[in-house]
Structures are given as structure tokens and as C-alpha cells.
């Protein structure tokens, strides 16, 4: 099952974890979850909150594309991606990628791959809000390097 949600409200990892585990029934042998959080410090400055903007419909389509590529590459039983939008305070959860598989290597790799592509292919933009200023977050070359790594590995 693929479950993709874009939402303002927070998510409960335990609930998602248990639901995924239930759906896989006896076939699941491995689960890997990644959660991204809002840091309260970036570039030597205190960040009070993040504002996350997205491109409705295109964002969902781009995440579906990322997940479908992961499903084509690895043996996966269940994938949940929840990405929050709107105003998020420091220490809040931003994103959850939860992957269930029969085997550990597929679950680890797919979870990391999906997360790396969310950074560069899913239509979200982050703005950091500080006490006296705000600025849009710039993409980093490291994010693109990590995404490209999966493309080059695919060719081997």
C-alpha cells in the first residue's frame, strides 16, 4: 500500500508504525522510519519557525513518482510518506517516511532513497523565520549529490 499525505497537522509515528505493521500482516519482516524535525538553529542564527509552501497536486504527483520508482527498484510491502506544510515551530516534526518490506536491506535503502529525492524532487519550499528576519532556505549541493547517487547506483 502507498499512503501519501500532505497536511498541516502533526502526525503520530506510533500510530503510523502500528497501522503499517498491521497492513503487512505476516509478510513484513522489516520496517524503517525516518522523521525530519525543525531545528532551532541554522547558519549561526536562532530559528523560531519554518514556513513550508507547496504546489498543490504537483507535490503529490512528484512524491508518487518518487515512491513508484522505489517500489520498482526494491521489494516493498508498504510505504507511507507524510509531509507537513504551513507554519511549523522549532522542534516540530516535518516529514515522515515509513517503509515496510520483507527484508532489511530493501527497507533501509528505500527509506533513504525516498527521503533524498523528497529533498530535491518534491515541490516544497521552506522559509526560516527568525526573531527579526526571514529567508527562504537554499537548496544545497549535498542534497543534489545524495539524490544523484541513487541514479548512478541504478545504472550499475
Amino acid at each position, binding site marked *: 500500500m502507498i499512503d501519501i499525505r500532505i497536511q498541516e497537522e502533526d502526525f503520530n509515528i506510533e500510530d503510523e508504525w502500528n497501522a503499517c505493521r498491521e497492513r503487512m500482516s505476516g509478510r513484513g519482516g522489516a520496517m524503517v522510519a525516518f522523521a525530519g524535525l525543525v531545528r532551532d538553529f541554522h547558519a549561526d542564527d536562532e530559528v523560531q519557525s519554518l514556513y513550508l509552501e507547496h*504546489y498543490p497536486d*504537483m507535490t503529490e504527483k512528484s512524491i508518487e513518482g518518487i515512491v513508484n520508482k522505489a517500489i520498482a527498484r526494491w521489494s516493498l510491502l508498504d510505504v507511507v510518506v507524510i509531509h507537513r506544510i504551513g507554519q511549523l515551530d522549532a522542534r516540530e516534526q516535518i516529514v515522515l517516511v515509513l517503509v515496510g518490506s520483507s527484508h532489511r536491506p530493501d527497507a533501509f535503502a528505500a527509506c533513504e532513497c525516498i527521503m533524498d529525492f523528497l529533498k*530535491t*524532487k*518534491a*515541490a*516544497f*519550499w*521552506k522559509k526560516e523565520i527568525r526573531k527579526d528576519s526571514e529567508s*527562504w532556505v537554499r537548496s544545497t549541493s549535498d542534497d543534489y549529490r545524495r539524490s544523484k547517487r541513487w541514479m548512478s547506483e541504478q545504472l550499475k
Partner: protein
Amino acid sequence: MEVTVLFFASLREQLGTSTLSVQLSEDSNTDDLLTTVIEQLGDEADAILRDEGVKMSVNQEVKDQACPLQTGDEIAFFPPITGG
């Protein structure tokens, strides 16, 4: 023909608008659209929209090169993605 143009994140703020309806002659492509949008928004939009970091999508698919347009198309301009 008429197309819809969307701007996101820093581009939306710099340009002061999130959406435009643009009239184009038949057989126009995305380069023609960009020229028309800049004419509509003024000179400041030229540097903002022609920055090499700006990405473009047509009907929610990212395009790296100019492509033909049809009436009703939705074209978006946005900065590099920073999700996750």
C-alpha cells in the same frame, strides 16, 4: 490562447503575485510566454525570472527546455526545491 502562470515561494514574493492569466498567440512556446510575462510584470521581473536557478513546469511536469504550449496550460516558475 490563454494560459495560467503560477509563481511560488521567493519568486511569488519578489514578483508580488502568485498567479497571472496570459494571452499568447497560437503556436507560442514557453520562451514566448516568459517574454510576455516579463512585459506584463515590468523590467524587474526579467532578472528574477531569467535567473539560472529558476525552474519551470508545464502542467505540473518540470521542463528543462522550451516547449510548445496549448490553451489552458498551467505553467509554474519556482526556485530550487527545499523539501524534506
